[in-house]
């Protein structure tokens, strides 16, 4: 995409400075300009100050933050530019929602649960005197709902937010922002938490609306793949400073700042490149020819990440799920799911929210509800509940949870948490346990000095390493990784993926890698099982599934996954 040629700037921030009340700088002089019809992506990880920079465009600072310097100028059409931060309350209120609008990250929290959606869109129009009559405004509500691809009938407008899906809620938020035809929209990670298919739909809607109405957009995100699909220009924000600023092409293809390079290389690609913080690609991603992979059928030895094949062990299933069904009342969460994980291999269980992937992994772990079908470990069936499993079975199947913020007891030191499974599941004495803990912490590249710390004193990446150490300390045969990267920042995700790949090479532990992100497939997995609506709709080697997807849904997923 190229930026439309224009000389005027609809929105411009100059040397914007914001501090906390306590005096810590949040933004240290941020500048950017956006032309009409242009999309500027403001990219940053958590804590970079990107939301603060976005809200400042509306003259809004959250509680605890103070504006200490710089200006924001807003020019709408032929009118004189307005200095958003210098005008009075009343004037600023008139700008908000009419000239500059905001689309929030979490639509579920930002729509008033007690008001009908039609009313919530209508009150923007009313406040800003859009349209001469109720009928005119009502027509505009219908029009803008249609523009974002929602039904425009009366009964839909009378719905409450909780009667809508997440994607629909977000589109209501977009409709609300575009209702008064603003000159500028600020989008704060509007697709976080949405499925890739819905994300594509939302991104297309935003792109269409901005182009059609010549709206300038400030798109706040942490996801560089999304940036590549929507933005004309990019500003990379780190610790309150813009470290790189340029056209999307320049920034993504030839980043000049080290941090940007780190971010760019950390993005996982469907073809298996990226997602690493060190030496570029893992192995040559396209070398394994699809024909040889499919020819070997169920054998997984040709997958790129399984380099250093494990010979005979590759054929024996260590974990086997067959005919697994779970239902709550009439609702079937899993229907007749079968899945094998062979010794030493990594199987990716791919599914979007609601696919049943979490239920499946919990059944394997013994934390789930009663189910039909069997889960067996090296041929021996496992009981449904952990209470009926033997210590040896519990030791053999370990689980790494999604969020390292809740998987470690905040009142125990890292060493205590890692030692726990050894205490309860093995006969090792205290000294042997301590030695094993130290050894495992080294193995996950965690500084031994952190062993006596509480989880609160560690970063997200360090905590996840500790959680992986707890999973590996009993030398399990199978490690379940449940969305282990999705709670982490992009650059940290890459290091965790790298770590898991290295651990597999070193230890040969089999893994069931549960995720919603198909882009990780070539980085971690030998085989993929695609789960949708509680059923495995497709499975095979990574190359088979990625190169020759047989199911419509898989094709749709691949098509909608943003690429850089």
């Amino acid at each position, binding site marked *: 995409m190229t930026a439309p040629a224009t000389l005027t700037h609809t929105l411009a921030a100059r040397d914007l400075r914001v501090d906390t009340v306590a005096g810590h700088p949040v933004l240290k002089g941020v500048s950017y300009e956006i032309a009409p019809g242009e999309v500027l992506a403001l990219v940053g990880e958590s804590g970079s100050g990107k939301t603060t920079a976005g809200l400042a465009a509306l003259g809004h600072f959250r509680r605890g933050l103070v504006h200490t310097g710089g200006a924001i100028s807003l020019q709408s059409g032929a009118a004189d530019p307005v200095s958003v931060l210098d005008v009075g309350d009343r004037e600023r209120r008139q700008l908000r929602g009419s000239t500059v609008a905001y689309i929030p990250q979490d639509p579920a929290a930002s729509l008033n649960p007690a008001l009908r959606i039609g009313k919530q869109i209508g009150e923007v129009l009313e406040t800003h005197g859009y349209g001469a009559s109720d009928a005119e405004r009502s027509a505009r509500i219908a029009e803008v709902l249609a523009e974002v691809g929602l039904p425009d009938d009366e009964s839909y407008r009378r719905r409450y937010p909780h009667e809508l899906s997440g994607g629909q809620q977000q589109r209501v938020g977009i409709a609300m922002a575009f209702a008064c035809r603003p000159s500028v929209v600020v989008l704060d990670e509007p697709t976080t938490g949405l499925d890739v298919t819905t994300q594509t739909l939302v991104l297309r809607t935003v792109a269409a609306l901005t182009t059609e109405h010549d709206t300038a957009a400030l798109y706040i995100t942490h996801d560089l793949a999304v940036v590549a699909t929507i933005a004309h220009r990019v500003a990379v924000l780190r610790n309150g400073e813009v470290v790189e600023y340029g056209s999307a092409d320049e920034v993504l293809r030839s980043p000049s700042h080290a941090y940007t390079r780190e971010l760019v290389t950390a993005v996982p690609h469907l073809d298996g490149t990226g997602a690493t913080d060190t030496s570029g690609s893992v192995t040559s991603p396209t070398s394994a020819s699809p024909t040889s992979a499919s020819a070997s059928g169920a054998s997984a030895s040709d997958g790129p990440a399984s380099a250093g094949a494990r010979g005979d062990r590759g054929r024996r299933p260590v974990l086997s799920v067959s005919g697994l069904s779970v239902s709550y009342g009439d609702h079937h969460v899993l229907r007749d799911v079968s899945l094998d994980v062979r010794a030493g291999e990594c199987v990716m269980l791919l599914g979007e929210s609601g696919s049943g992937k979490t239920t499946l992994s919990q059944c394997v772990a013994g*934390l789930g509800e009663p189910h039909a079908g069997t889960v067996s470990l090296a041929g021996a069936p496992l009981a449904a509940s*952990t209470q009926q499993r033997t210590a040896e079975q*519990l030791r053999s199947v370990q689980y790494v949870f999604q969020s390292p913020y809740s*998987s470690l*007891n905040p*009142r125990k030191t890292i060493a205590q948490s890692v030692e*726990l*499974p050894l*205490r309860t599941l093995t006969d090792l004495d205290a000294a042997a346990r301590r030695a094993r803990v130290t050894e495992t912490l080294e193995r996950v590249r965690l500084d031994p000095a952190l062993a006596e710390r509480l989880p609160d004193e560690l970063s997200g990446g360090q905590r996840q390493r500790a959680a992986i150490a707890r999973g590996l300390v009993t030398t399990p045969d199978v490690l379940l990784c449940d969305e282990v990267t999705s709670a982490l920042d992009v650059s940290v995700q890459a290091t965790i993926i790298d770590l898991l790949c290295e651990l597999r090479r070193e230890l040969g532990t089999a893994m069931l890698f549960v995720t919603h992100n198909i882009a990780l497939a070539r980085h971690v997995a030998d085989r993929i099982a695609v789960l949708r609506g509680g059923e495995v709709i497709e499975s095979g080697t990574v190359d088979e599934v990625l190169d020759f997807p047989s199911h419509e849904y898989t094709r749709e997923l691949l098509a909608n996954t943003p690429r850089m």
Partner: protein
Amino acid sequence: MTATTTQPTLLRRALSLPQAKIGLTLTTVVVAVAVLGPWVGPWLTGHDTTGFAGKPFQSGGIAGTDGLGRDVLTRFLAGGLTLLVYAVLATALGLVLGALLGMLAGYSGGWLDSLIMRGSDVLLSFPQLVFALLAIAMIGPEGWLLVLVIGITHAPRVARVARQSTVAVKDADFIRAARMYAMPRRRILLREVLPNITGPLMVELGLRLTYSIGYVASLSFLGLGIQPPTADWGLMINENRIALVVEPWGVLLPVLAIAVLTVGTNLITDSLASAAAGTSKSGEPHPAKEASA
């Protein structure tokens, strides 16, 4: 072992707040008076608590005499200890009972949860003081009964908080991990759950202590708690209030002592609540107060 690593941080965070320092000072002063008073009093004034020091309601000594001519200051100094002991015992009973029941209900769920919580609802249908009066009407104003009945009526209130906090952590991944490591339920409750709900329980401790002091003093004031001729602050207020205008000390001293004590403990409670909520701002809500009364 798990508790020792973190308890100091919560306490230390709480005690660094200004309201905690004021509260601690106020509480210490009154507790010192109550604990040392019974021994210091006779030595200081030369009178004992029951002996006659002068005519009724006379301005002799430092604080004058009461309606039976006993020295007010001596009785004041002796009158806080019983109140304090009863309040502490009732609080301990209510806290332990409530925390155990609440954790059990919250962690187990199902019929046990329903049974415990419906049982609580019945007790919660009585104002605490009214329930105490019902029991006293039947058995009489015995000391053990005061402790028992105030402790028991605290329990469902503490249990609600403990249950709520337990439910909030019981599905945390680290608890599920513990279940995967074959930890028995009792150990999960004591090792994994309890250390993570000490914050709200400490707040409950402070809150219930404040209320216990109020209830014991109120019952004595009503003449249905600690009985004459024992010197007691609540009782003294009742005994001396007819002469409030003539000889105000007999009322003012104990009223002040109770007020300073309860305000002190409540300030400490507030600082604990702020620390547990992770905020250092005074005036943040008590997570527990909504369930009080």
